[in-house]
C-alpha cells in the first residue's frame, strides 16, 4: 500500500501518426491532488484519458493502485484485459468531463443511481439514499427530480461530480471541469472540488485555473508538446518558473 496511486512511466500515444504523448513520467501519491497544466494540444487530456483506459496508450507503463491499466503481465508480455476486467477497473476511477456529459434522459437523481444499480448491483433504495447524501454534499438537495437541461452548467457539473463519487472511487480524474462554464459559475464547482481534496480524495485535475492549482494542488505538472516540461510544488513552479516555455505560458493565462 506504500506505492503511489498513479504511476506513469515513459508513456507514448499517437493518433494517425501524430505523437501526442512522447514519453511521459508522472507519479500521484495517495490522497494528493495533482494538477496538469499546459497549452491546448499539449496532451494533458489524452494523458488523463489514458489513466482510465478511455484511450489506449501505445507504449510505456501505466499503473493505478499498483495494477497495470488495461493490461496484465503474463510470461513477459502485456496482454490486453477483456472488457469485463477493464470495466471493473474503470468503476473505481471517477471521471468528470469538460462538457459534463450527464445522461440527458435521466433525472438528476437517476444520473447518480444508475451506475450504482447497474454496475455495482446496489439496491435502488440504497442507491437513492446514497445519491441524496451526495446531492446534499454538493449543495443540490432540491434538484433531484430535474432533468440536466433544466439546471445551470455549474449545477450540472456538481451533479456529474456526485455521479462519479457514487461509485466510491479511489481516484478522481477531472478533465477541464470548469472550462465550459460561465465565469460566475466556476467558483461553485471549484468549491466542491476543494472540499473533496480536503476529505483526502486522490485527484488528477487538468485545469486552466492557476489559482486553484496554487491553493489546492500538492504537485503541478506542466505539459508541452507531449512531454513534461516542468513539475513540482505549485507555489514554486507557478511563481518562479524555470523553463522559458512555462514562463511564456503563464504570462498568457495569468
Amino acid at each position: 500500500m506504500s506505492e503511489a496511486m498513479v504511476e506513469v512511466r515513459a508513456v507514448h500515444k499517437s493518433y494517425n501518426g501524430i505523437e501526442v504523448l512522447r514519453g511521459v513520467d508522472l507519479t500521484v501519491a495517495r490522497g494528493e491532488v495533482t494538477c496538469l497544466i499546459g497549452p491546448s494540444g499539449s496532451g494533458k487530456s489524452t494523458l488523463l484519458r489514458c489513466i482510465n483506459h478511455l484511450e489506449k496508450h501505445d507504449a510505456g507503463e501505466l499503473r493505478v493502485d499498483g495494477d497495470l491499466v488495461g493490461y496484465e503481465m503474463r510470461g513477459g508480455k502485456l496482454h490486453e484485459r477483456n472488457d469485463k476486467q477493464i470495466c471493473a477497473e474503470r468503476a473505481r476511477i471517477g471521471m468528470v468531463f469538460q462538457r459534463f456529459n450527464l445522461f440527458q434522459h435521466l433525472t438528476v437523481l437517476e444520473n447518480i443511481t444508475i451506475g450504482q444499480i447497474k454496475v455495482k448491483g446496489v439496491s435502488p433504495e440504497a442507491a437513492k439514499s446514497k445519491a441524496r447524501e451526495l446531492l446534499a454534499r454538493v449543495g443540490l438537495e432540491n434538484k433531484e427530480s430535474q432533468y440536466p437541461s433544466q439546471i445551470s452548467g455549474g449545477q450540472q457539473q456538481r451533479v456529474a461530480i456526485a455521479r462519479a463519487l457514487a461509485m466510491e472511487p479511489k481516484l478522481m480524474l477531472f478533465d477541464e471541469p470548469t472550462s465550459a462554464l460561465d465565469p460566475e459559475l466556476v467558483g461553485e464547482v471549484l468549491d466542491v472540488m476543494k472540499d473533496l481534496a480536503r476529505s483526502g480524495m486522490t485527484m488528477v485535475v487538468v485545469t486552466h485555473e492557476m489559482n486553484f492549482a496554487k491553493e489546492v494542488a500538492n504537485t503541478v505538472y506542466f505539459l508541452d508538446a507531449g512531454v513534461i516540461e516542468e513539475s513540482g510544488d505549485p507555489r514554486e513552479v507557478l511563481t518562479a518558473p524555470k523553463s522559458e516555455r512555462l514562463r511564456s505560458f503563464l504570462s498568457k493565462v495569468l
Partner: protein
Amino acid sequence: MTMNGDAVKVVPVRHYGRWVAAGFALLIVAMLIHTLFSKLPTGHFACQVVNGVRKCHPDLTWRFSWTIVGQYFTTSEILHGLVRTLELTIFAMVVGIVLGMTLAIMRLSPNRVLSTAAWTYTWFFRGTPVLVQLLVWYNIAILYPVLSIGIPFTPSSWALVHITTTTLFSAFAAAVIAFGLNEAAYMSEIARAGLIAVDEGQVEAAISLGMTRRQSLRYVVLPQAMRVIVPPTGNEVISMLKTTSLAGFVGVVELLGAASNIYGGNYEIMPLLIVASLWYLIVTTILSIGQFYLERHFAKGALRSPPPTPTQRLRRDVRGILRKFRTQRGPLEAVR
C-alpha cells in the same frame, strides 16, 4: 414608448395575401364536402350490364353511395380482413424493428465483416420491389422443396430434420417474412441515424462509470436514440399498414382483399373501396395519436418543457379566449 403618458397602440401588419389564400382554401374544402354528399342527377344512375341483364345502382340518391358503404362497413368479412391486416402489420413490424436494430448495431460495429454484411443486406432488400420479394417468398418451395437442419456443406442425407417447405410457408407466413425482411432494411437506416445522433460524450460517461459496451447501449444510448427513432418509425408503421394490401397478390384475405372479394360478387366497386379506405384512415388516425404520446414519452429531458397534450392545449386556448373576452369588456374591469 409613451406619448402624453399613454401607451402607444401597436398595429400589427395586415397579411392580405394570406387572407386571400386562406379564403381560397376554405372554398376548396367547401366544394369537397359538397361533392362528397351530393346526389346523382336523375337519369344518370350508375347502371351496368351483368350477364346480359341491365342492373342499376340500388342507391339512387348519394353520388358516393353512402347507404351501401354503411351496409358493408361492419360486415364480418370486412372485419376479418381488418384483423388480418392488423396482424400482418404487427408481425411484420416486429420482425422489421428487431432485425433493423440488430442490423444498425452491426453496421456501426468496428468489425468490418459485420458492418459490410449489414450494408449488403440493406442494399439488397431496399433495392428490389417489395412485391417481387413477396412473390419470391411465396414461391420459395420452387427453389427449396425441402428444408433440412444439419451441418453446412454436407450432403442433405446427413441432416437430422426435414420439413416440406410448403407446410412452413403459408401465404400469411410468406407475407410476414417478405414485409418484415423488407422493413428491416429501412428500419436499420432509421435506427442507425438515431444511434449516431447520441453524443459520444454520453458513451464515454457511461463507460467511465464502469458500464460495458452493451450496458451503455441499453441504458444510455438507446433510450436517447429513441427520440430520433420513434417519429420515422411511426411513419413506417403507417406505411406498412397500407403495404399489407399487397398480400392479396398471394391470396391472403386482408382488408382490401375482403373488399375486393365482395365487389367481385356484387360489382359495388366504389362503395367497397370507400369502406376499405375508411378503415385504413381510422387505423392510421389511432396510430398517429399513439405516436404523439410515444414521442412525448421519449422526449423526456431533451426539452425543458414537453409539448402540451391536445387536452392541455384546448384548456389553454379556452383560458386565453376567456381572458381576452374579459379584458375587452371595459377598461375599468381590465384594470381590476
